[in-house]
């Protein structure tokens, strides 16, 4: 296994589209690194550049200690799992697994042994003699993972491998991938647009937007202190509430009268927005202590929790996460109270975290 370093990567296609503006990151040996972002943010292009399937316009990529810029994919010693699995349709599972090994020219007994090992690891025993079209989506993805394992590559690249599976299977496979990664101590670069997947899998997450890295950090770091308004809106479901605030008397005050503790070092004379997670707010009976008046716009009953959307000082989309036992009717006048700590504060003009 090896670390991966991406330095000042820039990719511009001949037709002029810029897929990757500027991407920098460094992945440690044995780390599960997730690239997260909406479609068109450049995450897949970056991954394909690491794989060698795209040649970057400028910038360097290192795998281990090797500069791989000019190496073809085959010589980079990495394996990739694709969204559409890309199992060769005319080959049985067994031969799909053996294919990369035969391409390397390994002796037969070793091919056999490695295929058996990968099959055991991914529990593919009964599927070995089937062709891809006789396998379910989940089974195909397990075969695709096994085909990546069998090579014993220096790193794994995963391009939205779970997107085509249904929700239940996706959760199972997520556990499986995480377990496998831990067991093998594999360096893994995982691309997804699903923030739940990113949060649950990644040791570290890079959030990409418009070809740039907006933030890199552990799942908790990106959840607690999103580095930009984009990250704030992207991570968390429902996302962070962005409440316009003013600094007055050493406090942050919203139009509706909500008072928040300001973080130290706030700049003056700028339009600010406070990022408040739905669980850092509370819906109370009207007039409760430290609460400000608000009105319930709608409630989403999710069973284990209720998401209240409340109207607060003209801002109609403040979301509050509450336990299912606390019930208010739609349109009811309520109180809104901040219960969390110091919020993250953003500058409206730069859209970046200021404190």
């Amino acid at each position, binding site marked *: 296994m090896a670390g991966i370093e991406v330095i000042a990567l820039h990719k511009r*296609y*001949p*037709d002029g589209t810029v897929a990757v503006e500027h991407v920098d990151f460094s992945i440690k040996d044995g780390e599960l690194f997730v690239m997260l972002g909406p479609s068109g943010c450049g995450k897949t292009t970056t991954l*394909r550049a690491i*794989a*060698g*399937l795209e040649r970057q316009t400028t910038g360097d990529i290192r795998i281990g200690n090797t500069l791989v810029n000019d190496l*073809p*994919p*085959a010589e980079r010693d*990495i*394996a*990739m799992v*694709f*969204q*559409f*699995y*890309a199992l*060769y*349709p*005319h080959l049985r599972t067994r031969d799909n697994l053996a*294919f*990369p090994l035969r*391409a*390397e020219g390994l002796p037969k007994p070793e091919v056999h042994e490695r295929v058996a090992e990968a099959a055991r690891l991914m529990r593919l025993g009964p599927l070995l003699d089937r062709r891809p079209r006789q396998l379910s989506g989940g089974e195909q993805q397990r075969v695709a993972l096994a085909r990546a394992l069998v*090579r014993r590559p220096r790193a794994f690249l995963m391009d939205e491998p779970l997107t085509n599976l249904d929700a239940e299977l996706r959760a199972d496979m997520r556990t499986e991938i995480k377990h496998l990664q831990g067991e093998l101590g594999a360096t893994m670069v995982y691309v997804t647009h699903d923030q739940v997947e990113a949060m649950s899998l990644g040791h570290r997450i890079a959030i990409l937007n418009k070809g740039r890295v907006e933030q890199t950090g552990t799942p908790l770091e990106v959840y607690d202190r999103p580095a930009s308004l984009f990250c704030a809106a992207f991570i968390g479901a429902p996302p962070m509430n962005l409440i316009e605030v003013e600094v007055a008397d050493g406090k942050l005050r919203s139009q509706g009268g909500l008072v928040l503790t300001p973080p130290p070092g706030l700049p003056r004379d700028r339009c600010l927005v406070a990022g408040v997670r739905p669980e850092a707010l509370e819906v109370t009976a009207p007039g409760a202590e430290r609460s400000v008046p608000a009105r319930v716009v709608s409630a989403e009953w999710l069973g284990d929790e209720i998401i209240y959307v409340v109207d607060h000082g003209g801002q109609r989309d403040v979301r509050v996460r509450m336990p299912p036992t606390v019930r208010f009717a739609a349109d009811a006048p309520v109180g809104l109270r901040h219960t969390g700590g110091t919020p993250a504060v953003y500058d409206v003009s730069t859209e970046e975290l200021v404190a």
Partner: protein
Amino acid sequence: MAVSVDEAVSAGPVRDQTRPTRRLGGRGRSVLEIALLTVLAVVMLFPVLWMIETSIKENRDVYAVPAEFFGFTVTMEHFKDVFVAPGGGRSALSVAFLNSAVVAGVSTVLATVLGVPAAWAYSRFAVKARKDQLFFILSTRFMPPVVVVIPIFLMYRQVGLIDSKLGLILIYTAYNLPFTIWMMKGFVDEVPAEYEDAAMLDGYTRLQAFRRHTLPLLVPGIAATAVFALIFSWNEFVFAIFLTSSDSVRTAPPAIAGLIGGTTTDWGLVAAASVVFALPVLVFAYLVRKHLIAGVTLGAVRR
């Protein structure tokens, strides 16, 4: 992923079954349908039947008034005349058929060999001004052959390609190539590029990946495209009649047309030659009919 024709059809909007309809009942409707289809079939097939009948009638029956549909003497003389010259040996028509086979076959193979890799490249690579290039390629087909045949005649005379099979092969290839590229691009688009990516990561070069993984999946598409190209080259008349003159080079369409005229026309021979001319394409198209339909409906439904 590739969408098969069946899926594409079934994925259509579900019809509202509860809405009262004023359509004819099942039985009445099918009777009307069958009647209409029968009329249509008769209109479409009558010339073909008449051709076949004429080809096996003796000459005096051909000119009989009123025409005899049944009860004429069946003869195979005309078919013999198609292949055997009156004095024995090969007839000019049989040479023309052979020329047609060579010209159509070689030009189809050339168009396929050149067009498939081009289609692959246009489908897979970020080519500069790809859309403009593809439009330019298609635009070469905007004009009917008869518009360009005079300039081509003059050019061919300069370079000595007049009255040569090579000349015909080249012009047919040029005419088939845009069609091949466009149709094959549709088929290549349907094959996920990930197969090639995976093979490249597994240690193959791009070309090896194409040959080992994409090409086998393209075979049905190549078959459909080649049949269309073959039919065009086989049937082509305008270029053939303008650019060739000698019996040893001429293809079948102008050769058959050449039978008509002069003092008398041997309609039996014309019909027999036409039957022989039509058969190979009919049989071939029947054998690959599934692929042909795939080729025609491809791209009709977007993913």
